[in-house]
């Protein structure tokens, strides 16, 4: 097995008396899209900044692309910070070329790559415009282009789709998928769980500076899937034998039935069929949405 692209081991970070990150460990593998989830203030951005060597951990070790951070390794990383920033008074092409060259590209290569990306993002006609003349959505796309200008091996993006309309979100998601196919490793933080379900193989969910969940998306979801059944129909779901608790939807047509310990799906199917007044139109294993898991983690209803 190849060595991980990122290895974070027992890392802790304090800001004065406030513990931002507490003894976390995880790894990111070559070529995957890895999600970092968690509520605001969970420690995601601090962790990203420590990976990027912008700030130092108080304890623990971080290895990126095979070792400790060096100037050469920095040039292989693309970073999109949560707080976006561009030179507003500089022309697009000039700015992209400058930022590319700061990552070690030659002037010719940087110019060619900038034009290639502008064309991909359908912004090539704006190449000689200043950033301040572009719409907010266009600026977001440029910000993303700057991140991938130098064809980095590792991309770390903090909330890459925030503020984007669905069409532009799709454009950037496609670009991420293309990069991954080319072998680029991507770490992204987002609050949009459906994006994680669609794009990511594995995830790390943080809460209050600690690791709340860590594993593949399927693992995390299935970990909470075995004890509940999703049903559609009508009846007094809570009265069915084996049901511990029934979460009924607003319109009353669907419900998630939490099963008592020892009750299997087959037991429940039989029980439902035998319970008078209950009419089942749909019966399925309940796989919780990441969104639900996220909320339960934040509310403290799930243990790591």
């Amino acid at each position: 097995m190849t060595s991980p692209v990122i290895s974070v081991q027992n890392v802790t970070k304090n800001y004065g008396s406030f513990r931002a990150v507490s003894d976390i460990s995880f790894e990111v593998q070559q070529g995957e899209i890895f999600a970092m989830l968690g509520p605001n203030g969970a420690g995601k951005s601090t962790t990203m900044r420590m990976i990027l060597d912008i700030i130092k951990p108080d304890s623990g070790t971080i290895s990126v692309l095979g070792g400790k951070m060096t100037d050469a390794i920095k040039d292989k990383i693309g970073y999109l910070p949560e707080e976006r920033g561009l030179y507003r008074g500089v022309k697009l092409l000039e700015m992209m070329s400058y930022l590319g060259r700061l990552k070690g590209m030659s002037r010719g290569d940087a110019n060619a790559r900038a034009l290639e990306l502008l064309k991909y993002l359908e912004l090539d006609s704006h190449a000689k415009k200043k950033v301040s003349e572009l719409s907010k959505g266009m600026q977001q796309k440029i910000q993303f282009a700057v991140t991938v200008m130098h064809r980095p091996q590792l991309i770390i993006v903090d909330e890459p789709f925030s503020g984007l309309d669905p069409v532009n979100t799709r454009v950037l998601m496609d670009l991420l998928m293309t990069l991954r196919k080319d072998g680029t490793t991507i770490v992204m933080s987002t609050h949009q769980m459906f994006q994680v379900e669609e794009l990511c193989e594995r995830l790390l969910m943080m809460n209050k500076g600690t690791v709340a969940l860590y594993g593949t998306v399927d693992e995390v979801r299935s970990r909470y899937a075995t004890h509940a059944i999703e049903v559609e129909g009508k009846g007094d779901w809570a009265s069915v034998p084996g049901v511990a608790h029934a979460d009924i939807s607003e319109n009353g047509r669907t419900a998630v039935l939490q099963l008592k310990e020892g009750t299997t799906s087959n037991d429940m199917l039989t029980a439902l069929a035998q319970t008078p007044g209950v009419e089942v139109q749909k019966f399925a294993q309940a796989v919780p949405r990441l969104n639900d898991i996220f909320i339960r983690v934040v509310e403290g209803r799930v243990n790591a």
Partner: protein
Amino acid sequence: MNMTKVWLIAMQEFWSNLKRPSFLFAVFGTPILVAASIGLGVLTGSSGDDLGSYSPVGVLDRTEQGIFSNQVQPEEYPDLFVWVTDEASARQAMTDGELVGYIDFSPEYVASGKATLYGLRSAPEDLFDAADSLVLANLSATVELPLPTARIENSADLTITVLDGNRTFDSDSVFFITLLPLMFGFFLVLASMTTSSFLMNTLSEEKANRIMEILITSVRPLELLAGKVLGMGLLGLLQVVVFLVAGVVGLSIAQQQDFLLGLSIPPDMIVLALVYYILSYFLLAAGLAGIGAISNSEQESRQLSVIIVMPVMLPYMAIVTFLLDPNGAIPTIFSLIPFTSPMAIMMRSGLTTVPAWQIAVSIIGLIVTDLLILWGASRLFRWGILSYGKTPGLRGIWQVLRGRGDSVGQTAVKAKEVTS
């Protein structure tokens, strides 16, 4: 330190600022305004100077005819002149502080009309009128002497020699000769101030629009600081070259006029000016870069920049004091204090010969201060570039300099955490 990246940052800084209309105005417009204000200061300074501080002046009569033997004081200046018997006693009187200078009427005076004023510093314009009155008053008392009528029509053409230097002035060009080096020196300090202010503004801007976080994942903070200081320093040098070229062109035009013949900037002053430009630039650039890094907006950084800019500008505000007595207590003290010394020495160089020890002390003081400011700026810079809390006040800045920035600002990323 990756010098390729430092140079890349320097060049980006150089070209992007060169294209700014506000910078072009600062380069070409401000000097014109400042020249006008200095001219006004000199004019008001000299008209207010009625020789009160330039008195008494010795008269050494070495003419064969003894033109001044009657020792007649001109009516307008009854107490100005004191007669001396020989050169040695005149110089002794100057050393003892009894005379500010003396006019030597040599045996050749009758034929040439040229006399020499030896002084400790350059004389106010009124002395030339006083010398004319002195000659006419004494000629009237000795009408029987066979003198060329030219001596009556054109009584005295004074050449001023500052005793402890090699600068000489003649009666007609004294105003321009004192003014020109004064402006030249002033513009150099202004150049370093202009470029440093732009450096501070670009840093505040990069911080405010959050591009700093991207830059910092490409280069080290000190590479960024070095590149910016270098780029803006080169821009400042360009500004100095513009001043010099304008000065040379202006002088060559001015020298078409008889009365401006001999107008020049002494070479030693050019060297001195360049030394002070570099030293004052590092002082200002590093100081203002530190301020730019800890401020959250251009407005805030401008307010804080007063801490650095005000002391540097102080001598300019005391320009009249400098004109009246360039070797006086205030100009001398200003010349020795690191922040005020570049402007003070440059202004005095145009008016008098600054003692070498004062130049040496000021240069050493500036070098030490530059190093201290660079050290402090790098601390503020590393602490400030990624902190977006409240801009720290003087107390906060002091804490950061002492390495105790942890408690300053809520969202600050502390100095020791950022890779240097």
